[in-house]
C-alpha cells in the first residue's frame, strides 16, 4: 500500500529504536501517555513495546471513545429501541459495550420488535440519515459517539436533517472533548499530589488534532510543564514521537511539537470547527467511564436543532449506573493501573464477554493487551 507501508517499515523502526535507546538516559525512567486508543492499538498490534528500551514506558490513556462511554448512556439507547420503538443506528464498536442488566446493543438487537424498530451498525452518520429519508414511517436515532474527529460529520447530518425537515431523524449526542480529558488526568490526585502516576509527557492525538489543531495543547505544555508531541496512528509515527518526547525531557523543554505535520496544523480545520460550534454547545458536565463527572467535557445539541435532539425529543432522563465493583477500567483509563493488574482481566473479563469498557473496543487498553500482548504476562512453557 503506497503511503501506508512506508510508515510500517521494519528497518526504519529498528533504526528509530536504536536512536531512542541511545538517547534515553540510563539513570532515569521515562513514562509517556499515549492519549488515543488509535495509538494504543498501533503500539500493541505492531509490538512497539518490544522495540523500546526498558526505561521507556508507555501508559495507555483514556482516548478510546467507546471505553469512556458510561453505562447509563448505552442504557438510554437500549431504552429507545426496546421501549419506544426507535431504530438505533451506531458505529460498530458501540454494539458490544456492556450496559445494565447484562445487556448490550448487540444483545438488545435480538430482543427488538423488528416490525417497527431495530439496532443497526452503520459506517457513517449519513447512512442513518439515508435510512430516515428512505423510510419516513421509521423513527431513526443516530447514537453519536466519539471525540472531535467524529463530531463534524454528526453536525453535518443534524444540519441536513433540519434543512430537509426530516421529522423522523434525531441524534443522541455523546460527543466528548479531548482537552477536558487531558486536564482531568493532569488534575487527578495520582498525578498531582501522590505522584503514583509518573507522567513525563503525552503522545498527542492524531485524527482529533486534524480537527482542533495543535494549539489547544499549548496550555498543558505550559501550565503543567508536560511536553506534547502530536503523532499519527502508524507505528513509525509513534516511535518518532517517543524519540521527540525523550529529547524534550532530556533538554528540559515542555513544548507542543507536531510529528504529524502531514495532516495537522496549529489552527486545525476551521471549517469543521465552525460547523461544530453552529450545531453544538458545551455541556456543563458529562459523566465519563473511569473519570467520573468531568466539567465542560462534552457537547450537546443547541436548542435551534432541538427537533433533532433525541434527548429533547424523547424527554430522556440520564441515570448514572456504577461499573462492576471489581472492574478496574476507571483506574486503567487514568493510567493508575495496567490491564493485568485487574482481577477480572482474562478471567471473567474477555473480549467475548467484556465486563468493562476497556475490553470492548480494539482500541481499549485491556482488549489491546488481551488480543496482542498477553503472552508477555506469563512464561510460555513447553508442553
Amino acid at each position, binding site marked *: 500500500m503506497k503511503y501506508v507501508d512506508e510508515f510500517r*517499515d*521494519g528497518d526504519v523502526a529498528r533504526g528509530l529504536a536504536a536512536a531512542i535507546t541511545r538517547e534515553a538516559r540510563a539513570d532515569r525512567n521515562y513514562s509517556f501517555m499515549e492519549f488515543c486508543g488509535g495509538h494504543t492499538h498501533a503500539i500493541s498490534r*505492531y509490538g512497539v513495546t*518490544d522495540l523500546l528500551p526498558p526505561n521507556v514506558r508507555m501508559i495507555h490513556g483514556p482516548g478510546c471513545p467507546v471505553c469512556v462511554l458510561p453505562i447509563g448512556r448505552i442504557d438510554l439507547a437500549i431504552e429507545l429501541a426496546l421501549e419506544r420503538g426507535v431504530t438505533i443506528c451506531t458505529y460498530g464498536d458501540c454494539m458490544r459495550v456492556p450496559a445494565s442488566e447484562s445487556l448490550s446493543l448487540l444483545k438488545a438487537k435480538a430482543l427488538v420488535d423488528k416490525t417497527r424498530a431495530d439496532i443497526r451498525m452503520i459506517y457513517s452518520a449519513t447512512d442513518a440519515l439515508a435510512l430516515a429519508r428512505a423510510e419516513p414511517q421509521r423513527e431513526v436515532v443516530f447514537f453519536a459517539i466519539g471525540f472531535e474527529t467524529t463530531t463534524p460529520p454528526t453536525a453535518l447530518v443534524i444540519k441536513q436533517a433540519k434543512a430537509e425537515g426530516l421529522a423522523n431523524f434525531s441524534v443522541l449526542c455523546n460527543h466528548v472533548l479531548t482537552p477536558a480529558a487531558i486536564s482531568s488526568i493532569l488534575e487527578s490526585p495520582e498525578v498531582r499530589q501522590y505522584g503514583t502516576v509518573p507522567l513525563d509527557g503525552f503522545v498527542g492525538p492524531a485524527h482529533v488534532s486534524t480537527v482542533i489543531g495543535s494549539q489547544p495543547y499549548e496550555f498543558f505544555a505550559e501550565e503543567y510543564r508536560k511536553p506534547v508531541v502530536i503523532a499519527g496512528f502508524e507505528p513509525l509515527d509513534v516511535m518518532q514521537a517517543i524519540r521527540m518526547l525523550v529529547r524534550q525531557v532530556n533538554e528540559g523543554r515542555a513544548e507542543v511539537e507536531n510529528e504529524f505535520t502531514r495532516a495537522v496544523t496549529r489552527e486545525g480545520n476551521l471549517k469543521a470547527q465552525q460547523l461544530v460550534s453552529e450545531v453544538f454547545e458545551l455541556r456543563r458536565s458529562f459523566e465519563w467511564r473511569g473519570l467520573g463527572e468531568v466539567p465542560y467535557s462534552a457537547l450537546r445539541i443547541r436548542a435551534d436543532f432541538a427537533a433533532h435532539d433525541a434527548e429533547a425529543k424523547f424527554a430522556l432522563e440520564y441515570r448514572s449506573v456504577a461499573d462492576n465493583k471489581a472492574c478496574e477500567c476507571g483506574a486503567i483509563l487514568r493510567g493508575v493501573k495496567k490491564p493485568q493488574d485487574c482481577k477480572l482481566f482474562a478471567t471473567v473479563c474477555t473480549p467475548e464477554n467484556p465486563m468493562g469498557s476497556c475490553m470492548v473496543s480494539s482500541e481499549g487498553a485491556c482488549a489491546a493487551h488481551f488480543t*496482542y*500482548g498477553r*503472552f508477555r504476562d506469563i512464561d510460555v*512453557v513447553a*508442553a
Partner: protein
Amino acid sequence: MKKGYVRPLDLKHGRVDMSHGAGGRAMAQLIEELFLKAFDNEWLRQQNDQANFAIATVPGSRMVMATDSHVVSPLFFPGGDIGCLSVHGTINDVAMAGAKPLYLAASFIIEEGFALGELARIVDSMARAAREAGVPIVTGDTKVVEQGKGDGVFITTTGIGVVPPGVNVSGDRARPGDAILVSGFVGDHGTAIMSKRESLAFDTEIVSDTAALHGLVASMVDAVPDIHVLRDPTRGGLATTLNEIARQAGVGMMLEEAAIPVQPQVNAACEFLGLDPLYVANEGKLVAICATEHADLLLAAMRAHPLGTYAARIGEVHADTHHFVQMKTAFGGKRIVDWLSGEQLPRIC
C-alpha cells in the same frame, strides 16, 4: 389446446410462491424444469427420494461426510454467488480430510416472492460448479417459507467422499516443529462480499476466491501422503483457523507476518474498513501443516497447481501449553494473533 401442455416456468417475471413448496404440481414443475434440468445425472433421473450408489472401497480407505449451510448476503457477489459457493464449500470440507469428494446433496429453503430468474441463475451456477468439480448433486430437497422468514434463499449442501489408505489428516496432528503453509492470498472472499454490502459505498476489483480445492488436495496428498493437518480458513479467516488447530492439537504457533500473502488491494480495503485480513473469510484457500522435512516438497506441489500459485510457508508449530498463536510483525515486534471475538467490527476513530 395441446394435450398435456403445461405452461413452462416464467423465469423472466415469475416468483416463488407457497405452492412451490407444497408438494403439488407446482413443486414438481419447479423441480423438473429447474433443478433436474440443471443438475441432470443418472441418480436424479431415477426420481427417487434418495440416491442409490455403490462405493468401491479399497481396504484401509475411509468414508468422510460433511455438511455446510450457506446464508450469504448479497447472494451474488464479485467472483461468484451462493450457488457455486455452496458447492465449493462442502467439497472443500470433504477434501480437507485428504479425501476425494464423490457425491453431493443439496437442500434449498426459498423465501416466498423470490424471483424465479434469480433462482435459475443460482441453480445454473451450482450445476456448473458441480460439473467442473466432477462431483454430482445426486439428491435434494426444496422448501418454501413465507415472506420475511428467510433471506432470499438458504442452501445447505452435504457431501461424502473417500480418504485413500495411508492418509490421516486431522486437526489434532499438528506437532512442534511442523511447518505451516497457506495456499495463496488471504482475505479475498470476505473483502469482496463486504464491498458489495449496500451500506458500504466503495468500488474495488477484488473478487471472491471461491473454488473447489479437492484437485489441489489430491496433488498435495500425492506429493506428501503424510500431511498432518488441512483446513480451509473460511469464517473467521486464517487467524481463527490456526487458533482452532492450536487448541485441538494442544500446541502453539509462531507466524511470520511478512510471509503471509495478502493482495495489496485487500490490504488497502481492510485498512480502510478497520479490519484485519487475517480474520477475513476465504472460500478457496487452505492451510496445510506437515513435518518440516516435507515442507519444501509440499510447497512445490502446491505452487505447481493453478489454485496454489501463491502458496507460502508462513510459520512453525511449537510447544506451548497456552496454545497461543503468535506472530513476528513485519515491524519487528511480536504479538498474539488471537481468536476472533464476536463479529469483526470496524473501529471508530
